[in-house]
């Protein structure tokens, strides 16, 4: 079964979402990256203080119980859904509610948030990562306010 499943998973090399877990072709980092352009969709929290600040939601304690990679993988999937808009807003509201619940419980030290914004970000990768905090593109996709 181990051998058969292993061969099957390698043979079909299914995308992550359709892998016959726990069997896998282990395709992580196998894609060819010919250029230097990096694009990501990331959530930012909008603080309640004035003037408002935006903090990136990448810290694991902010996104708990989902890990960083898992959370953004799912967000990407929801964006691609036919009812993407509504599903995405539901997911973002859920993330904001959990962030606030955990903040009030003292489970992380992030600031109080009044909204979440999803941005499309793009960088041209620099071998010294000097532009790590300054993407060349920053486009707002969705914003949801605290309920």
């Amino acid at each position, binding site marked *: 079964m181990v051998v058969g499943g292993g061969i099957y998973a390698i043979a079909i090399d299914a995308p992550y979402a359709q*892998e016959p877990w726990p069997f896998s072709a282990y395709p992580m980092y196998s894609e*060819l990256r010919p250029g230097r352009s990096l694009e990501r969709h990331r959530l930012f929290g909008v603080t309640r203080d004035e003037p408002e600040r935006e903090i990136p939601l990448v810290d694991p304690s902010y996104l708990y119980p989902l890990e960083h990679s898992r959370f953004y993988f799912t967000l990407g999937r929801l964006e691609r859904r036919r009812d993407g808009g509504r*599903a995405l807003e539901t997911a973002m509201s859920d993330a904001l509610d959990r962030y606030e619940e955990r903040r009030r419980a003292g489970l992380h030290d992030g600031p109080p948030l009044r909204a979440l914004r999803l941005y499309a970000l793009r960088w041209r990768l620099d071998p010294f990562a000097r532009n790590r905090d300054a993407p060349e593109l920053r486009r707002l996709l969705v914003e949801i306010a605290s309920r």
Partner: protein
Amino acid sequence: MRSEPGFGCALRDRWRRFWFAPDSAANLGFCRFAFFALVLTMFVTRDFSALGALSPVFWKPIQLFALLGLAQPSVGVLEVIQTIWRIALVASCLGALTRVSTAVAFVLGTYLLGLLFCFGGLGHAKSILVFAMGTLALSRCGDSLSVDRWIRARRGEPAPAPHFEYRWPIRLIWVAITFVFFGAGISKLRHAGLAWVTSNTLAYYLMQANYPLGRPAAPPMNDWGLWLARNTLASRGLAAGSMLVELAFPVVLFSRRLRGILVAAAFLMQAGIAVVMGPDFSNFLVTYVFWIPWNRVAERVLGRAGHSRLSPGPVVRGSMLSP
């Protein structure tokens, strides 16, 4: 007149020896102890129950869960399941009611680890734990260095002699590990070909890891990856080395001489990736316990070769160095 045994016979004999030559119960017993102790350490504080409170919008069951018709569980159900799993891990580690405890650890562990992926992505480092737990559940890993063995000894039962039952489980886990590395190598060839080595693809991944908002995994331990990315020879050399280790890994099943080298190289590769790129392989690294011939290590450490309490009966080559 008898003819010389042919290639087929030699191959069959080698196959039999690989899986079924007598081996030490203590070696398998120590692997069981170390493996479950490490799994317990990693998951004892992990709270799976919070997944039950997530909005159903996140829920997308993996094939296994869809096939079994499993829905998103409640917080309460998950609290019960994870408590039983932790107890089963402790019992498996100690070798108490080993057949039952390892079976429970496998079934509930598969459920809890699989559940993580019903909310997005897949954890490739975790799937090897499922194979290892499943293999141990089917084995006689509680026959030595266990509470079960201690009880049997008190009843006057003799220590188990070397037997094939103590060999195949470790070999099966080796095969599962081999699929991981070989699969990763094949995947690179399939998706990128040799350009994975000759292009700057690894340099790209090394740079990406240093962008806090852009990386797909945990942060790297330092920014050495940027130095490697700037040095074309180093990054392409590392890419070539990684692909070579992955594609050559099946050799560990056949060559005693290369086994140690390839396993050490794979370990260093995974540790190196964690240091300069961030992905967490700690779950996977646990399974390296199965490569170490613990009975022989114990004999050397205790300086009691041939009389070790860990090796009842004749000393049998156990792991890394045996065919």
